[in-house]
């Protein structure tokens, strides 16, 4: 599979899901357990992605400048700063720790 295949197949899958919402009978998702699972699925996948993006390096686990950067991001979200500001701040924390702090 090339990158283009991955991009096109994933895009088609996501568009198909959007269209499915307009095509299927509305009572399908009204069961609380289904709606709840769809909601929790989003949370679980995002949390797993945060963990892998912060600690993963291929198939090994590393603690490097990403960890303090993520902690800083958490603090800034808690202070209700906007998304873009927090993302840039996290990048700056990691970049500065690498440049001056000698972190990997």
């Amino acid at each position, binding site marked *: 599979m090339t990158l283009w295949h991955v991009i*096109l197949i994933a895009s088609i899958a*996501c568009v198909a899901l959007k269209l499915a919402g307009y095509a299927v009978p509305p009572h399908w998702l009204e069961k609380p357990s289904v*709606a709840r699972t769809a909601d929790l699925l989003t949370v679980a996948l995002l949390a797993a992605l945060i*963990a892998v993006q912060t600690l993963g390096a291929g198939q090994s686990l590393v603690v490097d400048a990403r960890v303090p950067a993520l902690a800083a991001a958490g603090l800034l979200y808690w202070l209700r700063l*906007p998304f873009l500001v927090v993302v840039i701040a996290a990048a700056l924390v990691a970049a500065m720790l690498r440049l001056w702090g000698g972190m990997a």
Partner: protein
Amino acid sequence: MWRARSDPDAPIGIRSRLPGARSTTRTPESLATRQGVAVGVATAAYGVSFGALAVAAGLDVWQACVLSLLMFTGGSQFALVGILASGGAAAGGTAIASAALLGARNAAYGMRMKPVVGANSWWKNAAAAWLTIDESTAVALAQREPAARRRGFWVTGTVVYVGWNLTTLLGALIGDLLGDTRAYGLDAAAAAAFLGLIWPRLRSHQTIAVACAAAVAATALTPVVAPGVPVLAAAVVAVVVGTTNWLGRRTEGRVKP
């Protein structure tokens, strides 16, 4: 004010916190337009981070742009490039599965939005489906009257679509210029972006427990299985908790769309 725009996922209660929400002289439709533009512009701005991260993950500028044009759902796009960054095209299967699982909530939004968008032909329904994302759904549902809901949906969806694609291109071009993206902390920016997407959802014990368990499971599995699989395995946590409603409120009747 900046604060009004801090939630990238624009929760349903957004109405009172948006610019213009206090105005009494405007019609519900023009209020919906203003809110849609405000949310749309704020959301579109972080397309820059998507474009830059996509290029950092090994995609070219075209591939980043095609994702925003076709897929057009932020969470899935970030997830796809996040997994491709760790595993390359070899992790394609799990990258596709993760993107699709994250995109599943758009199907739920679609069912809720179909009676709202007022489409009377198949192509209008298809266009509405394409524009059905967190933000357009949230702004539509924040309005009270049917006409304002319809206006809120279309304005938000259109503004986010145009803006998101322009800023993706901008971000991809910037990322291309940067070269070694780790030196600029872009890998940490990816984690921070995901944290921003999950933040507004962490409101109950159940969602916090699921988030923690999923993160621990994904971390523990990373050295053991192929890249991408730990993220998918964490989805099992959601399915188990979701079907058993462990830690959930028992009185919960209808869950929000």
